[in-house]
């Protein structure tokens, strides 16, 4: 053996003095990161998920606008412009004859196509109808509380402003869609609240207690899941009394949607609890005399709350689509109430597709909201996963 071979066995020894009390200094950013709570970490990770973040902002804006639909809509909900039935969407112009005028629309002249009996509105090239902003227009009752007539945007005096056209009664589509948002957006939230409460209570009890509680809950879930969704919806909503007021019907529908939706959540909660209750900290809590309610709510639930929120976010769009489906079948909300489903119900004949395609525009907000919720839910799920860096 030569000396050069022995060298391999030599260890590297740092000759610099070693100070046992020396501690690694954290930068401010690192310290902030290490001390952050779970929710803060989720929030930071969510912000990095570009698509989810944008979706969150879009949804926040839409839900914020739900509070002030009366102000945002250029017309009141039921204003009928009987001279402008099935008016096509009007374009906004800025320049007239090369001169800057500000946003305006051209007034239209009515004629009728004698062959198809379709009303034709031809924009005149001289009548300028300037859009007014922050103005007083159609009177309405704000939240049914007090009368007001303030709008963000209204048509010119004696002018028209049908940015998305009008329906068969001459009602402005844009205004109806804005009003419809109030019902369609909240119906998912109320429904999900019902299903969330049911899912956590039943799934939690099943997962924590096990035994016959679990067996019963499992059978119940299996029975409900064995039924196809649409007949369940149909039967339950057909059971809602016809005499109910639209508001009651609205709550009835949300509760139905929630009653059918909770099973998935309950299964998730149950399986998580089954795994988590065997953890050491759950045992420790039990040994220290904590009651089941406290152990579940205080120790186990926070462990997967973020996952729950993600899965809930993913099921809200189902509710919104469910409402449109029910309303389409004529089993959901009915006419005086305006929701996107009700609006689409009016667009369901082939006539609407062929002659008045703007009647199908309410599908645009439906698609946007469903997409946004899906992206947000995806982002939340990724952000809530602690094993992802």
């Amino acid at each position, binding site marked *: 053996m030569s000396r050069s071979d022995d060298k391999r066995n030599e260890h590297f020894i740092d000759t610099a003095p070693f100070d046992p009390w020396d501690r690694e200094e954290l930068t401010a950013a690192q310290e902030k990161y290490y001390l952050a709570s779970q929710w803060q970490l989720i929030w930071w990770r969510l912000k990095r998920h570009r698509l989810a973040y944008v979706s969150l902002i879009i949804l926040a804006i839409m839900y914020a606008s739900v509070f002030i639909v009366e102000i945002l809509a250029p017309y009141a909900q039921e204003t009928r412009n009987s001279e402008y039935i099935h008016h096509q969407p009007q374009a906004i112009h800025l320049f007239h004859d090369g001169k800057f005028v500000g946003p305006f629309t051209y007034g239209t002249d009515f004629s009728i196509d004698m062959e198809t009996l379709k009303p034709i509105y031809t924009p005149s090239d001289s009548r300028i109808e300037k859009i007014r902003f922050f103005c007083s227009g159609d009177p309405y009752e704000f939240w049914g509380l007090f009368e007001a007539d303030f709008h963000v945007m209204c048509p010119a005096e004696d002018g028209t402003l049908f940015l998305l056209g009008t329906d068969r009664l001459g009602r402005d589509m844009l205004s109806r869609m804005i009003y419809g948002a109030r019902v369609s957006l909240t119906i998912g939230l109320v429904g999900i609240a019902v299903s969330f409460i049911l899912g956590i209570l039943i799934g939690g009890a099943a997962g924590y207690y096990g035994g016959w509680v679990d067996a019963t809950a499992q*059978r*119940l879930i*299996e*029975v*409900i*899941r*064995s*039924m*196809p969704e*649409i*007949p*369940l919806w*149909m*039967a*339950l909503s*057909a*059971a809602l*009394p016809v005499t109910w007021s639209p508001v009651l019907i609205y709550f009835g529908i949300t509760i139905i949607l929630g009653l059918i939706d909770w099973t998935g959540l309950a*299964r*998730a909660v149950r*399986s998580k609890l*089954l795994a988590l209750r065997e953890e050491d900290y759950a045992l420790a809590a039990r040994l220290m005399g904590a009651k089941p309610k406290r152990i579940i709510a205080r120790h186990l639930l926070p462990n997967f709350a973020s996952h729950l929120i993600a899965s809930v976010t993913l099921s809200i*769009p189902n509710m919104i*689509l469910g409402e*449109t*489906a029910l309303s*389409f*079948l004529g089993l959901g909300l009915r006419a005086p109430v305006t929701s996107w489903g009700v609006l*689409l119900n009016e*667009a*369901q004949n*082939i006539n*609407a*597709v*062929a002659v008045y395609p703007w009647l*199908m525009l309410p*599908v645009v907000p*439906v*698609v946007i909201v*469903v*997409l946004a919720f*899906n*992206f947000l839910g995806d982002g939340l799920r990724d952000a809530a996963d602690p094993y992802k860096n």
Partner: protein
Amino acid sequence: MLTFLARRLFVMMPTLFFISVLVFVIIQLPPGDFLSTYLNELQAQGEAVDPAKIAFLKQQYGLDQPIWQQYFDWAWGLLHGDLGFSFEYNLPVTEVVGDRLWLSVVLNFSTVLFIYIVSFPIGIYSATRQYSWGDYGFTLLGFLGLAMPNFLFALILLYYANVVFGTSIGGLMDPEFINQGWSFAKVMSVAEHLWAPVLVIGTSGTASMIRRLRANLLDELSKQYVVTAHAKGLSPVRVLFKYPLRMALNPFIADIGNILPQVVSGSVLVSVVMSLPTTGPMLLAALQSQDMYLAGSFLMFLALLTVVGMFVSDLLLAWLDPRIRLQGGVSQ
């Protein structure tokens, strides 16, 4: 394995019993019954209704008996394979359902196939090329299909198929074949009409399928055995197909339980819009007119399919995965 089988079979019985009660309750929930609807219709047409006739009809339909008696008569019949009698069609339920059932099976089976054929390659592609443009593009496309209300998509497709191709794609066959016996020409006609509803129903299903396959496969691909396989020099294709893909398929097998009833009754809304002669619109009409035995027996049939489907998928999973076999149940 035998104990597992026995336990699983035993559990099915109470489930089926509860489902039958639930089905019956659901049908009874809306106020009134078929006879009152029928009488209202007669009166609306200005016909005088003889009380004796009412009593006779009531007795014939068994509507004069207490609810629980009606339930037991129905359940007893079901156990003996007698699905009951449809009030509306004046025919045994089996005959009403007959042809529609087969068309539904053809339609929905093609849809399921379509979903699998489209979503499997895309899911695998998205997982292996995560965050690529293709991944984003396909995901967006899938989500658009998910977000678009089915019935509206059907309407639009109906219109444009008519304008662009000049064909009517409503229905499942050319009008001259309706109520005709089965012939080669009729089969071809059905095949010609099938693509539109399959496309409409399929688009909404592919998104979730792609998502799930992608997520499952990504989970598997980040595991150590995959790294080992790569390190040992296996070809990338073999590494993908040998284990990770198989593991990622588990949830799909668990899904068979939900697919079976879908194959029979799925797509109610689309069938209504495109006026397809499937079971969906029939069920809808039966529920609305409270045609008790038609709706009830058909719902029960669907539920039975679900329960059997779940049983089959449990068996398959247990056969594939010893962990489930030993624990005695699918844990999700």
